[in-house]
């Protein structure tokens, strides 16, 4: 092992590198797990500096990710986030201060990190992922994602899979994704079309089952049922003309009081203001420590991919997923999640996935069910069979024309074993299913 490379670097006039003494120690020395062909030194350092990297989300995970990447030697970082800063972000989103409340997260975060870490350029975009096209995403070496929305993750995943061109190795963009909830979280690495994608793993992140409407309407038992009743039913009945704003304290107070009164009628204890807010806004507990762990794990993988200083998660045929739990001691489970051969996004030829259905259910019931099925989670589906359009959400004319189908039974619309194609405005892809009658 040699230190002559670092010596030659500083001789070449890059005095700035004294700042990167610790990082360069790793970049200048091979280790027991580095590839035999790996070249330490200048090549590794320059490769890292040249890697343009995109961060999606500037929230709890995003703040950490930006800091970590800047201090890992990345020089050209872009960040996308459409949100503005709320006071409840301040317990963990450490790039924001009280005075920043109301400003765009991506702007404030980028400026802060640029100021602290000299020589790094951070380009913010305050808007939606969906505003950007393939050409935009094509410029990055990889993408690190720290989002709380499953839909946005699925969108970027499908976009990156769609961008892969077999003849152009640069079109394959590694996607590194982190997520947290309370003391739990996960970090995963995806090589689109080569390893298991977000869509392949969708059933590992099943949505919570919704409480049936009839329970809310007639037989509430839990304080949450009363809050959901106020939220979904009472508001519609009594304040139809006012758009519910989850951030308006007057609106939350109204819902809280409604829920409390209903709870009293049914002798149900436990409705509180905080619980009302939690249910209505679907609040997920979030703390700095879990964000730090998951974000750093993602950035560690990004750093290893960019530098080859050590083996990384996600290499085909190896582990690609780290699950983390911290409420009872510390537990991680690192494993290989395998590709689903019938994944609607990344399988070759986009094969139709077999789906068991009851031929007696109506099309409406079938579509409602799609929203909740862990492997589908499609909320605004439009559907057509091989023969005809079954239901379209838009345009208005087609919606009206296909609406009568909603009350028809599946058996009236398709044959056993027939393929249907489903699209959803949230995804740049088509989901194909083969309907098998039960």
């Amino acid at each position: 092992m040699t230190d002559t490379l670092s010596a030659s670097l500083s001789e070449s006039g890059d005095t700035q590198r004294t700042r990167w003494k610790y990082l360069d120690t790793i970049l200048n020395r091979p280790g027991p797990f580095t590839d035999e062909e790996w070249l330490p030194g200048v090549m590794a350092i320059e490769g890292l500096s040249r890697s343009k990297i995109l961060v999606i989300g500037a929230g709890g995970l995003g703040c950490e990710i930006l800091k970590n990447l800047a201090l890992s030697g990345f020089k050209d970082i872009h960040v996308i986030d459409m949100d503005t800063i709320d006071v409840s972000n301040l317990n963990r989103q450490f790039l924001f201060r009280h005075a920043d409340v109301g400003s765009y997260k991506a702007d404030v975060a980028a400026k802060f990190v640029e100021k602290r870490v000299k020589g790094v350029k951070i380009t913010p975009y305050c808007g939606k992922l969906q505003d950007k096209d393939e050409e935009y995403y094509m410029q990055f070496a990889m993408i690190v994602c720290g989002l709380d929305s499953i839909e946005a993750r699925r969108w970027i995943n499908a976009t990156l899979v769609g961008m892969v061109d077999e003849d152009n190795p640069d079109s394959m963009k590694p996607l590194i994704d982190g997520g947290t909830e309370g003391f739990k979280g996960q970090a995963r690495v995806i090589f689109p079309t080569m390893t298991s994608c977000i869509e392949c793993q969708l059933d590992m992140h099943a949505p919570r089952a919704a409480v049936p409407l009839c329970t809310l309407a007639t037989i509430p038992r839990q304080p949450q049922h009363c809050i959901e009743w106020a939220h979904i039913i009472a508001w519609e009945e009594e304040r139809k003309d006012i758009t519910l704003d989850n951030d308006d304290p007057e609106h939350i107070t109204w819902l809280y009081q409604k829920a409390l009164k209903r709870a009293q009628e049914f002798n149900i204890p436990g409705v509180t203001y905080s619980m009302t807010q939690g249910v209505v806004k679907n609040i997920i507990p979030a703390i700095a420590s879990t964000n730090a762990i998951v974000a750093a794990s993602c950035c560690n993988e990004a750093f290893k991919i960019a530098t080859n200083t050590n083996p990384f998660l996600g290499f085909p045929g190896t582990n690609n997923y780290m699950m983390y739990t911290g409420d009872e001691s510390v537990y991680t489970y690192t494993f290989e999640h395998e590709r689903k051969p019938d994944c609607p996004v990344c399988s070759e030829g986009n094969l139709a996935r077999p789906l068991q259905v009851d031929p007696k259910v109506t099309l409406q019931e079938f579509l409602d069910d799609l929203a909740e099925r862990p492997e589908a989670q499609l909320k605004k589906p439009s559907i057509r069979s091989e023969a005809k359009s079954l239901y379209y959400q838009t345009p208005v004319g087609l919606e009206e024309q296909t609406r009568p189908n909603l009350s028809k039974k599946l058996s009236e619309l398709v044959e056993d074993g027939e393929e249907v194609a489903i699209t959803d405005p949230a995804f740049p892809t088509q989901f194909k299913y083969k309907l098998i009658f039960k």
Partner: protein
Amino acid sequence: MSDLPPPVQGPTAKEKKYDRQLRLWGATGQIALEDSHILLINSGPGVVGLETLKNLVLPGIGNFTIQDSAVVSEADLGVNFFLEEEHLGGYRAEHTCNSLKELNPDVQGHFVTEPVESWLTQPDALKQYTLILVTAPIRPELLTSLSTHASAALIPLFYIHCVGFYSHFSIHLPPAFPIVDTHPDLETTTDLRLLKPWPELLDFATEKTQGLDTLSAEDHGHVPYIALLLYHLEEWKKEHDGQAPQNYKEKTAFRETVSKAARTNSAEGGEENFDEAVAAVLKSLNPPEPSGSVKDIFKAPECVLVKKDSPSFWVIAHAIGLFYTKYGVLPVPGSVPDMKARSADYIQLQNVYKSKARKDMAEVLESIRFLERTADRSTQIEEKHVEAFCKNAAHIKLVRGRPFHVVQAGETISWGDRAKSIAQTLTFPDSLVPLYIAFLAWDQFVATHDKDALGGAPKVPGETDPDTDSEKVTGIASKIMDDLVKEGSASVDEDEDATVKAQLQDFVQELVRAGGAELHNIAALTGGLASQEVIKVITEQYVPVDNTCVFDGVRSRTMVIRV
């Protein structure tokens, strides 16, 4: 609007800021955080300690103090987020303290720039701190004195390594560290007492299943599943000499009986309450026997002999132990999972459980008051603490804290009562025990090497000559491993020995490769883990690491070892 309850006070500014964490540890946890004063004794590149503090300042600890005599250098700016150019040449303790304070105006920050060697010799230097974090490298005699202080003052001490792609931390907790509020997973741990029902619960079941077969479809589909299971249990007992299903086979047979009792002529082709009953059979038909670790708490010397000044945990535990001896069960926890039922029936069922829980609690409280009188205790334990304890009695935890290894130059490391079990895990395929040993060897190197002849800063392996140092540290690590195998009288065959030695060599080489450098990502990750454990220890909620955690950033894995 006039018929609505009066408007409430909305959340306070503090509740708004801390909303996302209060949902985890509540107001009592937050108060505990605010009462804490955490000391960081910083060294080396100094990143992991600050990343740990960052995650504690954000959620609002009361005070922190940074002891660090280092002066900010150019190299700090490439790895430490809390330093910038204008701090060059100043004290690292001062500037990192100020940057951290900016994160949360509710938190008070302090710093000490005096070298740790002399600072620690002052009497009462450590007196005001409720928890101490110390990062490697540190001289063994200093670590020993901190460990002695932690043992005497009964305060938690964390020792953290962060080197290249690897990290480690050990926690030295007081010898008895009990936790009541462990936050068990409610879905898997609900205790419904179906095999030990009390008369009121049986009455409820009888009432709700009266004429079950003749009930209307609507009524039949709304019988709470607890009543269904109790009803079918009674039927089963009649045919099985009064015995409930005993084993897996019988439970599956019982489940089948319940499943068949569902009506299938409904629109949905089944009944949700029966589905719930069927799903609950395997997990609910277990005798409500406390776990071994809970029974161990009842047998602990602190529990058996309650004294005038015993912590209230032991007084309550003693009383619950008496309850258990008398009835063979713990007090009923009193919560009922949601289930398909009419509102009134569900509330009635909730009350059946709650009344029993209150009755059991009252009995426990009576023994506590008796104990308090006989032990001549000055203050009464608050009823709400007894209630919380009874509710979670099946999931209380006791961590037996102990000092971690402090590697002394030229001394063999002793594994004591842990030798056998750790020696056995040494050869597990994914074991990170070899990585822990590599860290001990790293410390041994530090203990025996100085940067200069003056005995100043310790020298870490790999700073200048990674090859030579690797060889040295591998040699030390091999010896530590051999001593462990010997002390644990473990049988490690030649092949296994060669495999583990090769792993040791790899871990050591990778550690030494870093030459003591911290990688920001690994420091941030380890700071996340350590701060999470600090929060658990301070709030006395959830279950902390007992007592050592190692992280391998090459393969992205952790392991917890009790040493």
